[in-house]
C-alpha cells in the first residue's frame, strides 16, 4: 500500500467493498464468553422456571407452564419474603448512607494522614464477605462474644444472650455486618462526588457570611444529591440480590425469619428444587428490571460517550 501513488483514493473504495473483520475479532472473546455465562444461562433460567426440574432427576423434568408462578401466590414464605426483602434493602441501604456520608465529609477535609485514614476506611470492603460474617458471629457469640461481655460489664445485661437465635436480633446483626462491609464503597463514591464541588462556591458563601450548616444545606447537599440517589438505587438492587452474608451467618433462619427472596431461591436450590428456585429468581429479576432499566440506560449513555 505504501508505494501506491494515491492511497487516500484507493482506501475508501476498498473499505466499501468488504467488511473489516478486525474489530469483530477483538470483541468476539468477551462477547462470546458473556453470551455463554450470562445470556444463555438467563434463557435457561426462564426455561427451568417453567418446569418441575429437580437436581436429582434433571433428565425427567417436565414442562408445567406457569404452575410455579401460581404456586408462589399461595406460598407464605414467598409472600412474606417480599416484605423481608424490602425490610432488608431499606435497613442496609439507609444505614450505609447514614454511616458513609459523615465519613465522606470527614475525609473531604484537609488534614495530615488523610490518605492513611482513607485506606484504613476501605479495609472492610476488601475483607471477604464470608470472613465478615464469621467476624460478626464471633463478636455476637452467646458464649464468648465481646458484645455480651461489654454489655454485661456496662450493666445493660444480666447474663449472656444467644443473639443469633432471636429473629429480630439476628436480622440486625446481619444488617450491621452488611453495613460494615458495604459502607466503604459508598463513602468512597460520595467522597469522589464531594471533591468535584468547586471550592469557590464555599469561598463565595463565606464572603456572604453563610454559616457552615447553611453551606452544607445549600451547596453540598444539592451537589451530591444525584450521586446519593444513584447510589441508593444501585444498592437497593444489589441488596435485593444479596445472598452471601445472610446465608453464611444465618442460613436464612431462625425459621424463615431471614428468608429474603434471593435467599429463599438459594435455599430451594440447595434442596435441589431448581425449577421453583428459578421461577422465584426470575420473578425477582423481573421486578428489579424496572429499576435497573434506568441504571442500564444511564450506564449506556455514559459508556457510549466515553468510548467515542
Amino acid at each position: 500500500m505504501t508505494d501506491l501513488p494515491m492511497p487516500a483514493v484507493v482506501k475508501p473504495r476498498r473499505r466499501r467493498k468488504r467488511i473489516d473483520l478486525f474489530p469483530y475479532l477483538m470483541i468476539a472473546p468477551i462477547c462470546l464468553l458473556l453470551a455463554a455465562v450470562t445470556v444463555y444461562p438467563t434463557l435457561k433460567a426462564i426455561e427451568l422456571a417453567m418446569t418441575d426440574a429437580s437436581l436429582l432427576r434433571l433428565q425427567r423434568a417436565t414442562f408445567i407452564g406457569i404452575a410455579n408462578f401460581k404456586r408462589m401466590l399461595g406460598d407464605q414464605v414467598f409472600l412474606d419474603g417480599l416484605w423481608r426483602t424490602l425490610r432488608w434493602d431499606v435497613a442496609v441501604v439507609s444505614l450505609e448512607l447514614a454511616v458513609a456520608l459523615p465519613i465522606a465529609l470527614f475525609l473531604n477535609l484537609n488534614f495530615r494522614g488523610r490518605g492513611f485514614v482513607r485506606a484504613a476506611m476501605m479495609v472492610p470492603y476488601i475483607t471477604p464477605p464470608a470472613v465478615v460474617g464469621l467476624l460478626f458471629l464471633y463478636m455476637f457469640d452467646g458464649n464468648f462474644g465481646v458484645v455480651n461481655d461489654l454489655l454485661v460489664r456496662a450493666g445493660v445485661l444480666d447474663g449472656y444472650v444467644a443473639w443469633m437465635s432471636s429473629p429480630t436480633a439476628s436480622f440486625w446483626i446481619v444488617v450491621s455486618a452488611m453495613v460494615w462491609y458495604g459502607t466503604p464503597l459508598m463513602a468512597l463514591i460520595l467522597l469522589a462526588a464531594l471533591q468535584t464541588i468547586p471550592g469557590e462556591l464555599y469561598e463565595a458563601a463565606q464572603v456572604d457570611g453563610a454559616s457552615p450548616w447553611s453551606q452544607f444545606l445549600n451547596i453540598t447537599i444539592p451537589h451530591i444529591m444525584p450521586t446519593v440517589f444513584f447510589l441508593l438505587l444501585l444498592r437497593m438492587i444489589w441488596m435485593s440480590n444479596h445472598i452471601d452474608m445472610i446465608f453464611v451467618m444465618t442460613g436464612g433462619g431462625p425459621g424463615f425469619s431471614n428468608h429474603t427472596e434471593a435467599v429463599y431461591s438459594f435455599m430451594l436450590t440447595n434442596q435441589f428444587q431448581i425449577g421453583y428456585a428459578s421461577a422465584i429468581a426470575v420473578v425477582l429479576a423481573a421486578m428489579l428490571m424496572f429499576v435497573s432499566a434506568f441504571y442500564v440506560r444511564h450506564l449506556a449513555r455514559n459508556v457510549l460517550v466515553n468510548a467515542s
Partner: protein
Amino acid sequence: MSTKRRKSAVPRRMLIGLGAFVILFYSLAPLLWIFVASITPEHTANFDRAWLSNRQVTYFPDSPTVANYVSLFATVPFGTYFRNSTIIAGGNMILTLVIASLGAYGFVRFRFFGRSSFLVATLVAYTIPSVVLLVPLLVIFRTYGLNNTHFGMVLAEATHSAPFVLLLLINYFSTLPRDLDEAAQVDGCGRLKVLWRIILPLSLPGLVAGGLLAFIMTWNNFLFAFLLTSTAEVKTLPVIMRQFALGEPAVWGVSAAGAIVSTLPVALIFLLFQRMLMSGLAAGAVKG
C-alpha cells in the same frame, strides 16, 4: 465545609484526631479482635471434643501463640483451599485482562456495524442479577462437566469481573490520544501490535487496577464457589469460612486464624496498590 479558619487551630486538630480515631476504630477493630482471637491459646484444641464453653472473652492473651495457625494447616487442609483460591482468582485475573483489553480496544478504537448494540448488550449482561444465573449455571456446568473444576470456576467468576474490567478499560483507553496509534501505524505497526506496544503500556495503571480488582472479587466471592464446588480439590476459602461459621471444627481460635489468613492476601494487595484500586473502584461503580 473544607479548610476553614476557626478561632484557634487546637480544637480543630483535636476534632480531626477524634474523627480519625473513630473511623480507624470502626474499620479495624473487628479485624483486630479476630486477630487477638487467633493468637489466643485454645484450652481445648481438640477436634473431636471441642468444648466451646471453655473459651473466655480474652482481650489480651497472657501467652500469645501461633498454635492455631499451625493446626489450621495441619488439621484442616487449609493449604489446599488457599491454593484453589489462588489458582481461580489468578486464572480469572489473566482471562479477564486478556479478553477485556481486546474488547475495549475494539470498542474504543474502531467504528463498525453494530458497535453500540454490542456495547449495550455487554452492559445488560453486566446487570443481570447473579440470583438468576445460579441455578442455570449449576445445571449447565453439570451437563458439560465443568463443576468441580478450576477452569469452570474461572469461567463462572468472569460473569461479573469481565464486564467490570471491560468498562474500566474502555474508560481508560478512551483517554489515550489517537495520534499515538496513528503514528505507530505509519511506522508500520499492525493493529494488534498497536494495542500491545502502545496502548497497553500506556494504560498500565488501568490494567493493574482492573486485574487486581478482578482478583479480589474472585477471591472474595462465595456464591459460585459454594454452589459449583463440592470437593476439597476445588473448594475456595470463602466456602471454608462458612464451614467455620457453622462451627466445624468448633475451635474458634483456628477459625479466627483462617479468617486472618484468608483476608491477608487481598488486604496486602489493596494496601500496596490502594491509589490505583480506589480510583478504579470509584470509576467502575459510578461512571460505568
